[in-house]
């Protein structure tokens, strides 16, 4: 059995706090978007959503700082040379190998805790989608200071559509993320690791 201390306390706290904020935003956002007053009344959802949005901004900044100075950043570096090969191997494993007991193509180590597919999606989410979501959210908060139109289209409308599309994509990510973590050695291996910090595997890596 191997045990690796992969997730330091600050990272775990950040992860679960971020998850809580994100789920709050998702639920209040859905409630506002579909006017689901039975879920959360509109006038309650709006201030919660706005507050959570500001908190998410802080959380994202913590993530960036943690990556810059906490040593976590190395996991998000994409190795372009090996990326295509790794991606194919990883995808083939999820689509086929996982059903026939093939060995996992990626082995978690202190240096590489994320496989190629994870790296790519996390980089896309945290450095791509998340800033767009946050910026469009802030643009909403200060929409009265924005120009009326942008490229001949109502500015608020553009922002709203961007915010919505990115939110849909991040909701999609949440579903995939929640499922993919069950594909560790046992369904709960990865979940436990994010709680305790220790990544434990029976088989040696």
């Amino acid at each position, binding site marked *: 059995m191997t045990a690796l201390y992969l997730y330091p306390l600050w990272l775990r706290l950040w992860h679960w706090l971020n998850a809580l904020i994100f789920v709050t935003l998702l639920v209040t956002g859905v409630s*506002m*978007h*579909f*006017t689901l*007053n039975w879920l959360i009344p*509109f*006038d309650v959802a*709006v201030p919660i959503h706005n507050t959570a949005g500001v908190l998410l901004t802080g959380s994202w900044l913590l993530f960036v700082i943690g990556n810059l100075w906490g040593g976590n950043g190395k996991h998000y570096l994409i190795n372009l040379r090996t990326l295509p090969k790794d991606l194919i191997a990883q995808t083939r494993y*999820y689509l086929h190998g*996982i*059903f*026939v*007991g093939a060995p996992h193509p990626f082995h978690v180590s202190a240096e590489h805790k994320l496989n190629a597919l994870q790296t790519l999606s996390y980089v896309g989410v945290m450095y791509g989608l998340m800033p767009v979501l946050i910026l469009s959210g802030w643009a909403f908060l200060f929409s*009265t200071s924005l120009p009326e139109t942008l490229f001949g289209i*109502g500015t*608020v*409308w553009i922002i*709203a*559509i961007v*915010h*919505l*599309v990115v939110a*849909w994509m991040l*909701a*999609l990510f949440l*579903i*995939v993320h929640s*499922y993919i973590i*069950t*594909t560790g050695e046992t369904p709960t291996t990865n979940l436990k690791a994010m709680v305790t910090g220790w990544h434990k595997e029976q088989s040696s890596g």
Partner: protein
Amino acid sequence: MLLSPLSDPRSGFSCLAYGQCGTALRRLLLLVLLALTASAFALSTAAAYGAAVQTAKKSGLLKEDSRDCMRCHWMETMAYRDRETGKIVNLSIDRDAYRHSVHHELACSDCHDRGYSHYPHRTSSADEALQCVECHEEREDDGAPNLVGLHHEYEKSVHVTEDVEDFSCFSCHNPHTFHPVNAGESIAQVVTETNGTCLDCHTELLTPVPKGHEWLPRPQAHWGAVRCLDCHTPLEGRILERPSHNVLAAEDSNQLCVECHSKGSALLSQLYNYRTEQARDEKGFFAQAIYNDAYIVGMTRNPWMDWIGLGVILLMILGVAAHGYARYRFHREQETSK
């Protein structure tokens, strides 16, 4: 041979050419010219008269007995100062506005049927009790819409319950100009016109941040886009074709943003029910489809996007569930084979 200059068929030319025939012939020519002009004028007048006769069949103001009234009442300055209130009472009828009003087919005497045969009219003539609801009921067979429903709404309105002095249909509606919303009118025009009716009396609200509306973000933008009535009438029992006449007090009026800023809202749909076609004409089908049902808070209530978004999410959940189930089946098979 002596020839009268007039008998010479060329004399006219020669006279003119040589100035021999004096003023007589010139006068004759002038007469002919005048006659031609006069007949042309007569012809055009006759044509205008013909057109007027055609219109007369439709316009009540051109009916025989209306002409007597309009002899004075067409004048823009036709007014008097009420001795009791000191206010100027306008008695002028804007013929153009009347022609476009719903009552354009009515002659003056169809409504003002008593006490106007004398001139100057007796002061008692002004006391005539004109009743919109009753009149419309009596003339229902002629196509006058029934106003009883409106009257019931009106009786519940703040204008009645608060005993506003001298309040009647005419406080808001001028029967000489009243017309429903025209199909071609833009939202902004409709809103300006309708809100103008309210603001004619509620002049205290003509400030950048109107009293009682401090809670409303960008009040002027709202006032340019929605009617006062859209918030100041009950949400329940709205009819798309016309606004409710149950005007609510400030404290009972709608203050929930989401009533407007969401899909399928009663407030929004009543004002914007005919906007879809208009927008399609202006922007084209695709642009209209994208902008349709937009709301400000999210501004994104586009049914297509919602269905696509929900569809992708659902497919992903199904895919993930199927993946998980397949894994479970493989795991079970392995367990049993062991």
